[in-house]
């Protein structure tokens, strides 16, 4: 039914458009003045031509932003690290860092509270060198919409640091809207099937990498934690 409705509307519209000029010609007053009628088509063609020129001249940057600015690529180490415990969707999938914070740790204990809908992994790594402070980084693998990287629009978790307690919350739920222009279905039969394949669309993964001093005890009841050492 949902397909039939637009189709019937098109058919009615097309027939109306065709009959429109006949019906009006029967009466004495034309729908459009004669000169307007004559010049309508050339003007429309010119408009289409100009639109095409403008479209091709539009700067590429004005479209969906490529991952840049607040996120950056991370070191090879992390790739290796992630590769072990966090199998990525494709071998060369990018991992980005979209948050990096460090807080001074004054106690021996670190309280980790996870609130809200947060469900992603937290990796905890103890490091000798890291004394008196903790380092929090949030990683995200690429989100793709039709092969187009929209990772830059993914919001990192919200962190709050108070009294040696790290509160991790997910950002409020949000919606990402995109517009995509497709090849015309009617002529897809002549196009290379590989070339016209619909691009991949998938969600990336997120994780928090927490680096704490080596003797710090992490107190938490969150389950999705991996201790790297």
């Amino acid at each position, binding site marked *: 039914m949902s397909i039939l409705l637009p189709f019937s509307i098109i058919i009615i519209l097309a027939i109306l*458009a065709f009959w429109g000029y006949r019906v009006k010609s029967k009466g004495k007053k034309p729908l459009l003045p004669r000169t307007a009628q004559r010049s309508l088509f050339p003007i429309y063609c010119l408009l289409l031509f100009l639109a095409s020129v403008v479209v091709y001249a539009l700067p590429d940057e004005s479209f969906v932003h490529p991952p840049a600015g607040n996120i950056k690529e991370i070191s090879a180490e992390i790739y290796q690290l992630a590769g072990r415990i966090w199998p990525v969707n494709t071998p060369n999938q990018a991992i980005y860092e979209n948050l990096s914070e460090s807080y001074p740790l004054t106690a021996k204990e670190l309280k980790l509270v996870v609130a809200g809908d947060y469900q992603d992994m937290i990796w905890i790594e103890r490091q000798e060198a890291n004394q008196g402070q903790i380092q929090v980084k949030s990683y995200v693998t690429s989100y793709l919409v039709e092969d187009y990287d929209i990772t830059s629009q993914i919001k990192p978790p919200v962190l709050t640091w108070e009294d040696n307690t790290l509160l991790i919350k997910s950002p409020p739920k949000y919606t990402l809207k995109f517009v995509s222009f497709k090849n015309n279905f009617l002529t897809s039969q002549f196009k290379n099937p590989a070339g016209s394949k619909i691009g991949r669309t998938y969600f990336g993964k997120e994780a928090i990498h927490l680096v704490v001093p080596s003797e710090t005890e992490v107190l938490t009841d969150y389950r999705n934690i991996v201790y790297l050492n």
Partner: protein
Amino acid sequence: MFLTETNVLAVTCKQYLVKLKAVSFSGLVILQAVILVFWTGGMGMYGASNVLISLSVRNYSSDIVIIATMIWALALAIMQTKKQAKNMDFTLVSNRLTSCLSDIGILATISFLGALTSVFSGMLQRLLMYFALEHSTIINSSFKPPLAELALDVVAVALYIFLIAAGGYLFGMLLEISRLFAFLIPALILGLARGQNNYFTDFLGFYITETSLLLFAGKVLLTSALCFALSILIYNRMEVRR
């Protein structure tokens, strides 16, 4: 014995010029513009979501405009066979052959112009969407299709429209023989589509599964030549301006 000598080609060309000037494209322009302006929702939409994010993608293409143009061309092809249109030819110099040949020329022109405008209406649509929506939500892939692809689209769509117009022309001619064909032809199509083996789908498949543009063009031109030849045969025996 004749005082004025003429030939088929010369008369056909003159008739073509007169008819081309008489074709109104305003209907087509309004049709395409209305679809572009009011069909802002796009052809389709899909989405995905997890706990944090809901993602929605709206798709745009010129398919609706192309289909509407096809129907417009079909109506025009049928109208071309009607008494009023034919009387216009026979008001001045004409025979049945030149009348049909100039119609074919007109339908070919209409197919090309219809394909050109409907394919390039996609460009206008892109521009409208670019300014109507936030740029940052437009996905760049195929926003600027390669020109070769556009050219391919124009040729393929023009062939499709021409095929439909040829069918419409033959249908219109049959209608001139008897109004009964208005029921017989749809009944025949429905009958073929309903049967044990769906012949109608096979028939469509003959065109829509062809992946080589050159072979497709061959099939379309052959079929339309057949339609037009049949139309001329029918028309050659018909009386005019009765």
